[in-house]
């Protein structure tokens, strides 16, 4: 008799949350945690209210202020964003009425949703967690099945504690070998998207595995999973290990005492079986990855910082060629030229991708004793108020400000238009964020995605710079 095939990690969590198989192919999945923010969560809470529905388990719904709130010191409910105050005030009132936990402006635990959720122990291994925000898969790094949804689905998740989800295919991306000096999780995920395209993961849940992934600290794993959505994936995740359990232990909402022991025993069973069947497998040799940087207007428009801007003429696919030509024109760059050495106007460190304490420490290591080049606007926005406080406790804020960076309150900030702030037209920005789309960081703004250390190095040199030339090996 044939043995049943093994399960992937995602299939295992999926099965553990299956309430029933619905007619029509979808699965009714139990949702453990819902997280909201004031841009898309406000409208979900208002929608529920308007329909006269209640949040089924308010204790398992959380909300933060990050997408609209500004990041200037001394901030309040007013923001530079036109109409912004309404989002903040509406969210607060609706959150209170619904009885959910709100990380409000001024709360020492406020911050960017995907930074706060693991920091608080709300995202845990093995849970299902949804948020009306595309980067929710970030916390898949703990071995959670977490994915972004729309506001209407968020209403559904809050009212019913479930979502009807269509089946997804399974992919494993294995990074073999050891990551070279000066290369980070950001470079790994950009390299993946560069090689396999921004639509390479469409229809898949992607499990990241391999030696180079196991070697990553938890905060770096968040960066890797964060950009699974930029690969087009439904979500990304990583099997939890001892580092994961150590990270989770003692966090405010994490299980304690006997509950901890029971949870830990369960979490140790969360992995893909040796005979699990993946629909697709990608292997990337981590030893060959250089610091990566984008040159165009899609995350797939990226190269090693020591490489040359590709020539659209060499692209066989007509639609991709057109997109490349359009991107070069928007970015004011020339095919065949190096990207390194291109002068920049601004540098930004922040966002749910790269704003955690380890990111700030690494960037500060580059900046220590150095100055941002003249004429370069440089901004650092910590991922959460806790990250900010921890950074200040070890003096990182002074490293940033002495180098010439602005040091801000936490929020999504200039990743897009949060707080109503943008970079200028034709300004060239090197940024630790996740999207280099046209007009994303400002109308006509030219964004180059890179790791926080690459951003720091480029800020110092006033031009796109290979971080390895400035990194201190003894650090």
């Amino acid at each position, binding site marked *: 008799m044939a043995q049943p095939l093994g399960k992937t990690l995602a299939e295992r969590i999926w099965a553990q949350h299956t309430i029933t198989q*619905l007619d*029509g192919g979808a699965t009714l999945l139990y949702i453990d945690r819902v997280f909201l923010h004031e841009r898309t969560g406000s409208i979900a809470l208002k929608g529920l209210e308007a329909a006269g529905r209640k949040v089924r388990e308010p204790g398992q719904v959380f909300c933060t202020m990050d997408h609209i709130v500004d990041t200037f010191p001394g901030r309040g409910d007013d923001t530079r964003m036109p109409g912004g105050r309404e989002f903040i005030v509406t969210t607060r009132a609706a959150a209170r009425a619904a009885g959910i936990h709100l990380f409000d402006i001024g709360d020492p635990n406020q911050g960017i949703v995907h930074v706060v959720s693991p920091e608080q122990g709300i995202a845990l291994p093995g849970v299902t967690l949804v948020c009306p925000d595309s980067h929710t898969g970030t916390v898949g790094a703990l071995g959670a099945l977490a994915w972004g949804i*729309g506001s209407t*689905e968020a209403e*559904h998740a809050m009212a019913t504690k479930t979502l009807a989800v269509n089946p997804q295919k399974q992919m494993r991306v294995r990074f073999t070998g050891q990551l070279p000096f000066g290369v980070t999780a950001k470079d790994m995920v950009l390299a993946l998207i560069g090689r396999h395209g921004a639509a390479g993961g469409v229809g898949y849940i992607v499990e990241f595995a391999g030696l180079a992934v196991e070697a990553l600290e938890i905060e770096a794993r968040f960066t890797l999973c964060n950009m699974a959505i930029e690969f087009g994936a439904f979500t990304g995740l990583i099997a939890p290990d001892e580092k994961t359990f150590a990270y989770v232990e003692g966090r405010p909402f994490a299980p*304690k005492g006997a509950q901890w022991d029971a949870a830990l025993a369960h979490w140790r069973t969360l992995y893909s079986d040796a005979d699990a069947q993946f629909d697709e497998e990608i292997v990337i040799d981590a030893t060959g990855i250089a610091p990566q940087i984008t040159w165009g207007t899609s995350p797939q428009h990226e190269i090693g910082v020591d490489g040359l801007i590709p020539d659209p003429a060499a692209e066989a696919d007509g639609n991709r060629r057109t997109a490349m030509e359009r991107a070069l024109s928007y970015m004011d760059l020339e095919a065949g030229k190096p990207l390194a050495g291109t002068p920049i106007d601004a540098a930004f460190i922040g966002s749910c991708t790269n704003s955690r304490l380890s990111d700030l420490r690494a960037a500060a290591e580059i900046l220590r004793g150095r100055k941002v080049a003249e004429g370069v606007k440089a901004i650092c926005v910590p991922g959460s108020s806790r990250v900010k406080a921890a950074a200040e406790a070890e003096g990182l804020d002074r490293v940033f400000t002495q180098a010439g960076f602005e040091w801000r309150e936490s929020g999504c900030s200039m990743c897009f238009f949060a707080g109503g702030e943008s970079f200028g037209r034709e300004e060239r920005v090197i940024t630790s964020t996740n999207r280099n789309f*046209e007009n994303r960081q400002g109308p006509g703004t030219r964004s180059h995605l890179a790791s926080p250390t690459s951003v720091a190095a480029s800020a110092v040199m006033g031009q796109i710079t290979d971080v390895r030339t400035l990194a201190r090996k003894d650090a």
Partner: protein
Amino acid sequence: MEPFTTHSGIAAPLIRINIDTDAIIPSREMKRVSKDGLGEGMFANWRYSNVATREENPDFVLNRAPFRGATILLTGVNFGCGSSREHAVWALKDFGIRAIIAPSFGSIFYGNCVRNGILPIRLAEETVAGLADMHEKNPEARLAIDLPAQRLRDAQGGEWSFDIAAADKEMLLEGLDQIAMTLKHDDSIRAFMARDRETRPWIYA
């Protein structure tokens, strides 16, 4: 939700790959906590040569007659990738778009379409390119969609079938409120929760 059964309309070719939801509705066009009135901000950075004054860019396809009245979009790979903002779908709907035909879609965007009465249709890249070319040359031609039959027919007699998950099809056809549908399974949900409290008590602590 407005049900979708059959529809015939002008189809606008907007063949670009990886059109993201920031392009469909820029952050600065989301000014209120509301699903309404977002059509004006749809594709704002492409549609207007001056976003502030709303001066139109005459080259943009949806500013050209008769595409100004398009109800169907023909577009490229990975349409609606990026941000989860449902505002992208609300903006398209407010403008009058009823169906979007592309080789693939961003997954959150796809779900948002289905939940708002917009039919997302996946067709092979060559097929979409052929349709786009035909409608560029014959802008007045109407494209006919039959969701119950899962068929698409162009004005020149070309016909294609398309796949859609049965659950998505039902939601669109019936214009159903999904929460009400799900709550028909409330006994199963409650039973699951009771069991789960025993097996994973830390989730409920």
